[in-house]
């Protein structure tokens, strides 16, 4: 059997030549197998065609996927680039770290620490951030608290600066990666210090002014012991010349003279102490002592207006960390206001009460209660505003300065009153050793 060469086209089969290959006059056996062959070839061709089509399709899809992926990668690169720019030139320094080791940092951080990125990568953050203890540092670097921690930053050249940091977790597979934002608060601190200084000087001025207002009554307050001294001394002389002076009598008189001289000295000392020009200080303070000092200064004015001052001081009051003169100033201000409020109260009822007590777990409270005319809700807000005064020559700063002093110490000052029944002014101070909650918010006096 001759097999004619089949014309091959790309997948095509020349059917016309098949007829000459398989003439009809050959025996039927040969036709059958040739038919089978034909069918097989057809089938093969069909399958090849199908497969080819499938491959083409698969290839096309693959191409399209590659394109999409390339686009995604491009978008990602661009996005990263944008974020990189953002991170790099934001105000805050940003550092990415793992177990304290620096992995990466932005431009601002590198600048903040005055070095190159290469100097930072691989270093441990404990070399750059100073805190009280490693626990505090660890906690601030690897917890999501949201509240900033204050600490100091240390540059590679050794210089330090005040800083605040806050951290966030950065999920990265199984790795414990964190990102921390660091802010250099040197400028903030400076502005804060300026403001504190300014407030302090304002308080000092207010003290001078207060003393000026009280000068007349204080001077007259000195007349009491002087009167007593004169009377005892002269009495002794008279008795001596009339021969009625006894040893006991003289001793008693002289003791009184000494006591009264000391009493006068106390008034003067309190006064001088109150206006002495000084720096703000923060020491352990016993509030009861300050109340006594303030009352000593206020008594003259109280007496002048026909008022008396009663004290009810708690025993064993915990001490507070404070600037003693400023707290004394606040108490004195409240006392003077109380006396003035009672100017029109019935003479027998003009009593001012000062009370100290522990309030809750962590505060000491001082209250000054008067029986004056009282005030309503609106006025209770106004009285704390600057330049509000009910005195004819009043400066109107007393309560607003008092409040800022108290808040600077981490406490609160407020008033309770009903019109017609008097008023109570209260302020709190945190007990010594417990102002940790205050430091983060505003810089406290006792930092």
């Amino acid at each position, binding site marked *: 059997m001759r097999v004619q060469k089949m014309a091959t086209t790309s997948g095509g089969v020349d059917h016309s030549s098949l007829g000459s290959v398989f003439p009809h006059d050959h025996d039927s056996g040969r036709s059958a197998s040739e038919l089978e062959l034909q069918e097989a070839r057809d089938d093969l061709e069909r399958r090849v065609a199908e497969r080819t089509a499938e491959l083409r399709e698969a290839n096309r899809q693959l191409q399209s996927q590659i394109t999409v992926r390339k686009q995604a990668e491009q978008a990602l690169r661009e996005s990263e680039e944008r974020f990189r720019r953002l991170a790099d030139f934001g105000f805050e320094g940003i550092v990415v770290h793992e177990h304290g080791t620096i992995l990466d940092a932005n431009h601002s951080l590198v600048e903040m620490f005055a070095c190159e990125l290469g100097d930072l990568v691989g270093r441990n953050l404990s070399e750059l951030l100073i805190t009280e203890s490693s626990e505090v540092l660890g906690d601030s670097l690897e917890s999501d608290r949201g509240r900033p921690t204050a600490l100091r930053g240390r540059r590679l050249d050794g210089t330090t600066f005040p800083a605040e940091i806050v951290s966030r977790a950065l999920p990265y597979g199984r790795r414990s990666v964190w990102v921390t934002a660091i802010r250099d608060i040197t400028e903030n601190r400076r502005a804060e210090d300026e403001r504190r200084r300014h407030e302090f000087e304002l308080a000092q001025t207010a003290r001078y002014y207060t003393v000026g207002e009280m000068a007349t009554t204080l001077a*007259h307050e000195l007349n009491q012991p002087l009167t007593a001294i004169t009377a005892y001394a002269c009495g002794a002389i008279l008795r001596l010349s009339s021969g009625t002076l006894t040893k006991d009598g003289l001793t008693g008189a002289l003791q009184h003279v000494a006591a009264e001289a000391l009493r006068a000295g106390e008034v003067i000392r309190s006064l001088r102490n109150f206006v002495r020009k000084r720096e703000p200080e923060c020491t352990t303070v016993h509030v009861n002592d300050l109340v006594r000092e303030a009352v000593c200064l206020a008594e003259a004015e109280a007496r002048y207006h026909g008022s008396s001052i009663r004290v009810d001081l708690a025993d064993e009051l915990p001490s507070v960390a404070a600037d003693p003169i400023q707290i004394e100033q606040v108490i004195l201000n409240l006392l003077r206001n109380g006396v003035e409020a009672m100017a029109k109260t019935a003479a027998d009822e003009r009593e001012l009460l000062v009370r100290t007590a522990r309030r809750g777990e962590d505060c000491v409270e001082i209250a000054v209660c008067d029986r004056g005319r009282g005030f309503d809700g609106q006025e209770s807000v106004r009285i704390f505003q600057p330049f509000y005064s009910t005195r004819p020559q009043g400066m109107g700063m007393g309560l607003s300065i008092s409040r800022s002093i108290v808040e600077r110490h981490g406490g609160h000052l407020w008033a309770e009153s009903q019109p017609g029944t008097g008023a109570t002014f209260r302020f709190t101070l945190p007990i010594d050793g417990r102002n940790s909650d205050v430091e983060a918010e505003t810089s406290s006096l006792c930092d």
Partner: protein
Amino acid sequence: MSKQKPVVYVIDDDAAVRQSLEWLLKSVGLSVEIFPKARAFTDRYDSSWPGCLVLDLRMPGMSGLELQDHLAAQGIKLPIIFITGHGEVPTAVRAMKNGAVDYIEKPFSDHELLECVQRAIKLDAGARSARSEQAEQTARLERLTPRERQVLELVVEGLANKQIAARLSLSQKTVEVHRAHVMAKSKAHSVAELVRTALGAAGVGAFPRPVANKS
């Protein structure tokens, strides 16, 4: 009226001041009582007790000026000396206008205070004796009958018995009898004494008013 020893009453809310003043005043033999506030004094004091008051001007509760007003309202005429550590002219003027004996600023010398106190005690003694004399005189005249009273008034006016008789339409003899009774009951030994008694009862005392001249 019993003659009591005068007492200096000292009121000052400052303990050292009032105790030292007590010591000082006792040094010259005066009797002293001290009080920390006005109320303590008013609760205790009886207006028949002679002496004077040494009083601080500004005190808690009732002030010095308020006490002065209170005593005046009660008709208590105890002389007051104000002492004060606060020198204020308006208050001083008011205190003096309301009848204070004096006003002294602290600190004062013993001399100043003692002189004032002696003066006040004398004033008080004088006033008391004048008052008691007046009371006595009033009592005497109250013993007169209405007719005797009429006669007294005309005698004091300077009328002679004859004129009195004419005025009252009485006989001269009757007038003489009434007149004798008047002199006896008034314990007067002369017309001049009678006149003094009548004036004293009328509250004129040492400052005689010109008598209206009816004729």
